[in-house]
């Protein structure tokens, strides 16, 4: 037996023995049976260890007939552990495991008061064979109405309201459905009988008929748990055993959902106005990071054009080759469905010192990602003479040095030390036709690192957070 197999077998044996020590009976190879005594009496349970044990919790079934409730799988097993939060393998502690089972009984018999509002009604239905994702926006205006849907290759989208067709329509792209609201169900519905009992009685009969006559095949159900609302998308079929419901994967696609994962800072960044100087490799990924973070307005400035050789280390795709880098980045960001950033571009080089002060005063933050020996000193010097700090980001020594500087250093911090880089061996320089300077062989992951580091500092500066340092240097030269 390999050490890996042995580790798993050992964990399994120790768990089984621990339960046996606590009065459970083991029925090899994978089932135990035992009793728990609660205030209301004794409850027998069976515990099964799947092949995924110990990295997946045991499956626990109450032996007696228990009323359906939340936190019960389709096969009747208790839902003891949330999907997120299993990394501690807490079930391997036999006492904690048994205690949790006891609490499940207690909660079930009390009707799950103070339950967390898990929005997982779909798990109480068997899954459909269709693995397409049903996308929906705000369904409130469509509650109680029939809807038209479009069946795409990987998604099913809602086209809008419409009456149920008069007869069954077979079309690979067109479909019809109904939107129902069931409020806050005390017990999760799991079939047509239990679901239809929660739908407006005025509509149920017609809906039932439409499904049996195969005039509609989808029912989107909105529901609520405490203050949260959710949707379960169901496929509805008429069968010899009655109307059969199967759940489909579904997801909201409204603007708020699309931006939800921008994070907690998004609200504060919505009013921010940023200028990114340089839309090269670092600048492009920096613009990407700040858009995703929720920055409200962004101007991207770069006088260079996108070449094919840039693509491996740039945000923009091949369709933008030949365009200005600033426009290429703006266009890439602008088509994203979650975009909430007002993006402007400037395809000119910054060379006139007279312009600089206006830029510093006109934006909440200017970020220099030019790595341009002419621009950077100009920006930094201007910042030192005003109350408008700037952020510099660069990559040196072909990615072995990543550096972000706040200029001037925030109060209470010191300027970061210089990081001198030796001149490269001329015999190792690589040139590309059309480019005057040697090509930097900085790896793409390094520019991404620099961009994300700069984004972190930029967000802190835009939100007015105290900075403990005037930047950060990541020097990898010692690891060469």
């Amino acid at each position, binding site marked *: *037996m390999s*050490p*890996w197999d*042995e*580790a*798993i*077998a*050992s*964990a*399994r*044996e*120790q768990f*089984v*023995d621990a339960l*046996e*020590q606590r009065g459970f*009976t*083991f029925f*090899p*190879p994978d089932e135990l049976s035992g009793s728990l005594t609660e205030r209301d009496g004794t409850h027998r349970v069976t515990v099964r260890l799947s092949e995924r044990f*110990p990295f997946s919790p045991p499956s626990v079934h109450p032996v007696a007939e228990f009323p359906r409730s939340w*936190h019960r799988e389709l096969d009747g097993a208790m*839902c*003891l*552990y*949330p*999907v997120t*939060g299993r*990394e*501690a*393998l*807490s*079930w*391997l*502690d036999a006492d*904690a495991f048994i*205690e*949790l089972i006891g*609490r*499940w009984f207690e*909660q079930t018999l009390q009707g799950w008061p103070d*339950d*967390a509002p*898990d929005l997982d009604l779909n798990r109480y239905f068997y899954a459909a064979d269709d693995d397409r994702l049903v996308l929906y926006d705000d369904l409130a205006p469509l509650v109680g109405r029939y809807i038209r849907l479009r069946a795409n290759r990987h998604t099913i989208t809602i086209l809008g309201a419409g009456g149920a067709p008069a007869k069954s329509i077979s079309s690979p792209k067109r479909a019809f459905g109904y939107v129902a609201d069931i409020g806050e169900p005390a017990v999760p519905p799991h079939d047509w009988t239990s679901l239809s009992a929660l739908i407006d009685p005025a509509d149920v009969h017609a809906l039932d008929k439409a499904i049996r006559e195969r005039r509609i095949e989808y029912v989107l159900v909105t529901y609520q748990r405490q203050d949260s609302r959710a949707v379960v998308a169901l496929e509805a079929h008429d069968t010899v055993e009655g109307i059969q419901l199967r759940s489909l994967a579904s997801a909201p696609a409204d603007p708020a959902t699309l931006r939800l994962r921008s994070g907690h800072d998004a609200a504060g960044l919505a009013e921010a106005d940023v200028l990114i100087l340089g839309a090269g490799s670092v600048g492009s990924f920096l613009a990407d990071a700040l858009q995703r973070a929720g920055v409200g307005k962004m101007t991207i400035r770069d006088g260079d054009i996108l070449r094919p050789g840039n693509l491996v280390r740039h945000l923009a795709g091949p369709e933008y080759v030949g365009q200005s880098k600033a426009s290429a980045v703006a266009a890439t960001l602008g088509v994203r469905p979650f975009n909430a950033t007002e993006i402007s571009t400037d395809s000119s080089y910054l060379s006139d010192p007279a312009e600089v002060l206006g830029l510093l005063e006109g934006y909440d933050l200017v970020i220099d990602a030019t790595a341009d020996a002419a621009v950077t000193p100009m920006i930094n010097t201007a910042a030192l003479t005003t109350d408008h700090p700037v952020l510099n980001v660069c990559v040196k020594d072909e990615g072995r040095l990543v550096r972000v500087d706040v200029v001037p250093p925030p109060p209470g911090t010191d300027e970061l030390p210089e990081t001198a880089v030796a001149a490269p061996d001329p015999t190792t320089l690589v040139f590309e036709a059309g480019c005057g300077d040697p090509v930097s062989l900085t790896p793409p992951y390094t520019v991404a690192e620099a961009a994300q580091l700069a984004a972190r500092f930029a967000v802190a500066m835009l939100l007015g957070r105290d900075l403990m340092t005037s930047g950060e240097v990541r020097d990898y030269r010692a690891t060469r």
Partner: protein
Amino acid sequence: MAVLTDRFTKALEMIEPSPEDKTNAPLAHSDVRDVLTSADALKKWSSNPVLIGSYRRDVSIRRVKDVDVFCRMESPDETSGQAVLDAFFTVLDNAYGTDDDGKKRVRRQARSLQVAFPEYEGLYVDVVPARKRWDGYWEIPTKDSEDWQTTNPDELTTLKTAMNYTYGGLYVPGVKLLRQTRRTILTSRPGGLFVELCFYDACNRGLVSKVNQTLTYVTGLEAIATFLQNKVAWGQTLPDPTMQGKDLAFRATDIQWEAARDKFVVAAEKARAAYDEQDLGKAAVAFRELLGENGDGETVFSMPAGYNDDGTKRTSAGLIVPGEKNVPAGTGRFG
């Protein structure tokens, strides 16, 4: 407390009669049966040989060394027990003769006839002639006498089945584990039948636990040890569960009983200590010593996964452990 159900389950597999045993025993029985039922000299008694003994009761352990054939004489007469034995011997001796080394295959014993089957890996068939009594019991020849003595072997099979049901299937495996332990710790009598019947008596008196197989085994050992202590001290006897009012008699000398007492007392203490042990490895070492090797020379009790033969843990035994409790009492989300 170490229960180690999985290891005891595997141990039972290790002492279960082998496929060869399960093939050879019925073949040997069938062979002897054919010889006896076709013999003209025995036809007057209407011989009906049936299997009895540990193999019949499914409490044999590997390797099955002998098979007991109870040759029921449905139409007995007044022939003495020894004369019946002589007649059976003649029939069997004529049928089986000698082996390849020239040794006689049939041996006449005090109360039975032993037929050797060298072709079945040293298996023996013990043939015991029995005549029917008026009260439903049977009688077998008495040692060194022309008389017959009463017996009721079929009933033991019935009692075994009932006790196994009462004990939720733990009784028969318990017998096997205890017989294996006897084979490991004793080099002489009393034999496996004593262990089985002492255990049966203890179960009958509620001295044996039904909680799990391990505890059935441990309390069974303790009950046998207690009986042996009492037997040696003041002559306690075992009632014959197949014949009311009669006690069982076993062939063993006083010295052998004392030796058995000493060994079983130590074994019972070791088993109890193992059961109470928190460390699975240490417990397994003790159970391994008690259960020894099977008839094929293989270790009966395997160590739990992740433990060395000396009971120490390997690294793998401690690799996968629970992390911080993230569901304190009264809080924490359910799935």
